[in-house]
């Protein structure tokens, strides 16, 4: 069952399905369903034999989500083996030699079958099918390192040098067959289906990582702290000449409060540490094996001859990119930690600036190159901001309380892009529209589309707008959004697409409250973000009768003067659905947890040999504060270039929980 897609995914369909079609038919079937049945189509039924509702209004692949769930039969079982053995030797005092070998293996079987069903002429399955996928991962890591620690007076020194080798193996075997003897779980194995429609697929691969590293930790009298690390990492997925990257980092700290002059002059401060760090981390992102190389493949390449028989083709795939290298993130952090008033108040403040250089992302070659460029070091992205964490706790009395909050600002911007492309296209949305782009000067994978400025109220306003701007070939009606001719070429075309929103918040925050009095305790945890946009992407311009959120109707333009913010009823205009009209403020605050507990008195428990027993009631993710009019402000996709696009995903459920913790 798919999610996070505007084409036939279950939550998307729950949104787009019309409200008139029932989930199941309990009486006689309506004419359209009866005629579908009469035509011999396998309409789905629930456990009680009732047919699932079929929409006569919403067409295409949009279909009854409850029927989809009923017809989904899938299970995944994974067994994992994780473990390591090590040997340690201390030949001289302070020197420790360690060798460690670990494995991390997972063996997974995914089994599914699909019955025949008919939701519409565009969403049906006429032959039942069975699919089994076996996937195995086998990773081992071998580490060898030497650690030497020693104290010379007030000098503390720790030296580490070592290496690590990792091998990651993967294999899978997929099989499917169709034509089940009966549509039941126990027949859902390929032994029980006809042999002539079996399919098989599979592959096996290995990749390796090799690292050497060294580290110096030094402090003087717990006042001056220094940590220097250098690592050299080699990744087999990179071209042989670029497999190695060098990644240093340095951090230094000064515990001011350990200075004798400080202790005397500022007694109210218990602890103060000023610190700074700089470093480079390497990442291989998700580069696949051999994707930098131009190598011969025959995978999926076939062409029918004039008699219909397939001929196999083979070609050099991809443009070789021998310059592909490690993605680096260069980060600077400056800050301090502070404790005051007998450790009751704590405060941490940090400034951070992290620049990801040579970001590995799917490549875009000029059209005339004639091949795809799978991955390139395409550009630089900078994230910077300030992080603050402030708290107060008081355990002095029987009423104990703690209150705290944290806050971070985020400023995200693409600072470099390979100059042969103006902007990289990200994700497509709906039919024929690209919604996100990667471009210098903008947040990474920002939303791009038409910019609008209000609603045309009447024909006179349209005429005036066209006369003053000189735009031709643009024929809006009263109630349509006013589209801005961004590039000033006196026409409205997709050359006017521009920045319409960013999926990235510029403020992230959290808050916590802990209270306790005698046996009672109370906990609240709040989390939120502000400044990010959500692209409402579940609507479909090619499905005119698909359902829409109620505010599309309630807020709509109904005549001159009715509203200047929302358009007249419109199911299919790109000026509405590919524009900033679909961009909403995604800020939210969510109370993640609200919990009240009561611990039973000790004397009562000791008799039953119980150390602690606590009853609690908890509201998890129960309260959300947001202006986003969709189902959930956290509904965005997890794909990087699709972040913040709401195609319809399971909203985070509200939970009410009662519990009992007992310790013996």
């Amino acid at each position: 069952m798919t999610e996070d897609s505007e084409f036939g995914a279950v939550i998307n369909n729950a949104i787009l399905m019309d409200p008139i079609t029932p989930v199941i038919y309990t009486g006689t079937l309506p004419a359209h369903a009866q005629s579908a049945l009469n035509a011999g189509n396998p309409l789905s039924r629930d456990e009680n034999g009732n047919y699932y509702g079929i929409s006569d209004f919403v067409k295409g692949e949009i279909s009854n989500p409850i029927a989809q769930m009923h017809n989904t039969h899938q299970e995944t079982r994974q067994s994992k083996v994780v473990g390591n053995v090590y040997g340690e030797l201390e030949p001289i005092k302070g020197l420790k030699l360690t060798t460690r070998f670990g494995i991390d293996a997972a063996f997974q079987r995914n089994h599914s079958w699909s019955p025949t069903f008919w939701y519409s002429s565009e969403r049906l399955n006429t032959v039942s099918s069975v699919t089994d996928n076996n996937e195995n991962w086998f990773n081992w890591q071998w580490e060898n390192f030497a650690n030497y620690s020693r104290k010379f007076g007030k000098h503390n020194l720790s030296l580490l040098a070592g290496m690590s080798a990792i091998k990651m193996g993967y294999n899978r075997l997929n099989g499917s067959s169709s034509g089940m003897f009966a549509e039941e779980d126990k027949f859902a194995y390929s032994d029980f289906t006809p042999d002539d429609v079996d399919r098989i697929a599979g592959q096996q691969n290995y990749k390796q990582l090799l690292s050497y590293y060294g580290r110096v930790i030094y402090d003087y009298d717990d006042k001056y702290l220094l940590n220097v690390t250098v690592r050299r990492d080699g990744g087999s997925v990179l071209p042989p000449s670029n497999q190695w990257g060098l990644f240093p980092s340095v951090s230094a700290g000064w515990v001011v409060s350990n200075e004798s002059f400080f202790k005397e002059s500022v007694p109210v401060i218990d602890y103060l540490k000023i610190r700074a760090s700089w470093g480079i981390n390497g990442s291989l992102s998700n580069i696949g094996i051999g994707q930098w190389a131009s190598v011969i493949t025959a995978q999926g390449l076939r062409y029918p001859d004039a008699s219909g028989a397939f001929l196999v083709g083979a070609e050099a795939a991809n443009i070789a990119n021998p310059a592909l290298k490690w993605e680096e993130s260069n980060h600077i952090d400056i800050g301090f930690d502070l404790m005051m008033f007998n450790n009751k108040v704590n405060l941490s403040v940090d400034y951070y600036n992290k620049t990801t250089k040579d970001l590995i992302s799917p490549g875009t070659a000029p059209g005339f190159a004639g091949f795809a460029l799978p991955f390139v070091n395409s550009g630089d992205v900078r994230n910077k901001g300030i992080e603050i964490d402030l708290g107060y706790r008081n355990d002095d009395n029987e009423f104990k309380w703690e209150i705290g909050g944290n806050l971070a600002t985020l400023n995200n911007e693409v600072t470099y892009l390979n100059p042969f492309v103006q902007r990289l296209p990200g994700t497509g949305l709906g039919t024929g529209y690209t919604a996100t782009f990667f471009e210098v000067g903008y947040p990474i994978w920002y939303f791009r589309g038409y910019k609008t400025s209000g609603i045309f109220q009447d024909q006179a306003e349209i005429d005036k707008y066209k006369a003053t701007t000189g735009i031709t070939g643009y024929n809006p009606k009263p109630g349509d959004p006013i589209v801005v001719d961004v590039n000033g070429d006196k026409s409205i075309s997709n050359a006017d697409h521009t920045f319409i929103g960013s999926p990235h918040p510029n403020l992230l925050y959290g808050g916590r409250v802990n209270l306790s009095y005698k046996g009672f305790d109370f906990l609240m945890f709040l989390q939120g973000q502000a400044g990010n946009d959500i692209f409402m992407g579940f609507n479909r311009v090619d499905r005119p009768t698909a359902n829409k959120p109620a505010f599309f109707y309630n807020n709509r333009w109904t005549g001159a003067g009715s509203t200047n913010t929302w358009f007249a009823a419109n199911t299919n205009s790109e000026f509405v659905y590919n524009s900033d009209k679909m961009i909403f403020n995604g800020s939210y605050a969510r109370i993640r947890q609200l919990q009240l507990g009561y611990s039973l008195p000790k004397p009562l428990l000791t008799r039953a040999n119980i150390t602690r027993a606590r009853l609690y009631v908890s509201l998890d993710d129960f309260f959300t504060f947001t202006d986003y009019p969709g189902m959930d402000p956290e509904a965005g996709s997890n794909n990087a270039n699709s972040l913040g696009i709401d195609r319809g995903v399971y909203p985070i459920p509200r939970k009410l929980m009662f519990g009992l913790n007992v310790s013996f």
Partner: protein
Amino acid sequence: MKNSILKIAALSFSTFMLTGSCSKSFLDQEIPGRLPIDGFYKTDADAMQATVAMYDFLSEHYNFGWSSITLVKTFPSDESNAGGNGPGDQPGYQALDDFTFDSQNEAVFGAWRMTYYTIARANLVINNVKPENALRKRLIAEAKAMRAYNYLELVSLWGDVPVVTKAISLSDFQKTPRTPAVDVYAQIEKDLNEAIPDLPLKSEYSAADRFRLSKGTAQAILGKALLYQKKWAPAAAQFDLVIKSGQYDLEPDFAKVFSLQGEFGIESLFEVNYVSNVPYDWGNFPWDNGRALESNIHIQLMGPRADYYKKAPADSLIAGWGFNLPKKSLYDAYIAAGDVKRRQNTVMSVAELKAAGGDWTDPTSWDFEGYLQRKYGSYQGQTNGSGGAVAELNYGTNWRLLRYADVLLMAAEAYYRAGDEDRARTELKKYASVRTSAR
């Protein structure tokens, strides 16, 4: 004691690792299922597979991201509207229809890119296969004709375009200039003149091999390239070779010209081949991998929109997504010319649909002028809806890229412009006697 022996053994083993002697080999990467380029293009079988990949890309081109060059050329014309559900459905197509497209238009950009992708695969054959025997010479000639065909598409749509005849590396991205159109044409002529001697006649290919570029096809492409350059007499000479080759004639039954039944028939010079036997359903259709797609999804794209269309009981034209809707003026032009047979196989009015017992429920639907298209029609008999296959996804209908009818009409133009009106009329009459007579 025993324990410490184990420790020492492990440590000495790790010392071996630390020496780094095996580090180079440890990072050696095996690429499963792939062969280095220098291990390929050696045998006849390699050459054959490399050529198949080139033809396969042509079918990818016409399936990739809704960017078939045929539709890119059709929408700006006055024969049809973009259609679909509304102005936001495939905005790239709508913009072509409305003349608001630019270089970033998805369909335009896709057509540009896909044309070069086919050229790149032709380049691989031309540059890597050694012409050591007759078969390989022929395959190289096919690749040269394919390259020329695609450059003719490019130069006729964009004028000056980069001429790429070698594999491109990253450093070439910014230093590959546009080539003046006259030099693009020179490259086209050179490729075709080199290919023609090595290409067999259509009849010299086996029936199964008739998807391949033949001598007649290459000559017709050359004639077209010369015609576009207003080199009238040399163009006429090439068409004359095709006409006199005795390999082609007009398909007497017009219904077969753009349908499954007439594929690789007497009128065919060049087609993109599709089949309906894979079989696709909504679950296994390779939406984002046109390369794996073997059916022609554009037929479904151009079928009458399912939301409004009720099929006439006896008709076999089934519903689709409603793009490429004919204009009224196209229908009227057929009526004015009294051209019944071609009209019936190209465009149908809603009045005709209703008379036959069908219906169109929304006369105000987007871009709809009261007419439905039947050329490359979504006919039930051209797809496969059995054994789990879904009819909408399995049209096997081929795109016709070059037909003998084109050759006759281009010949007539070339002869007329070259001053030989009699010969021009002769070729026109051949065409008219079969096509426009009220048969």
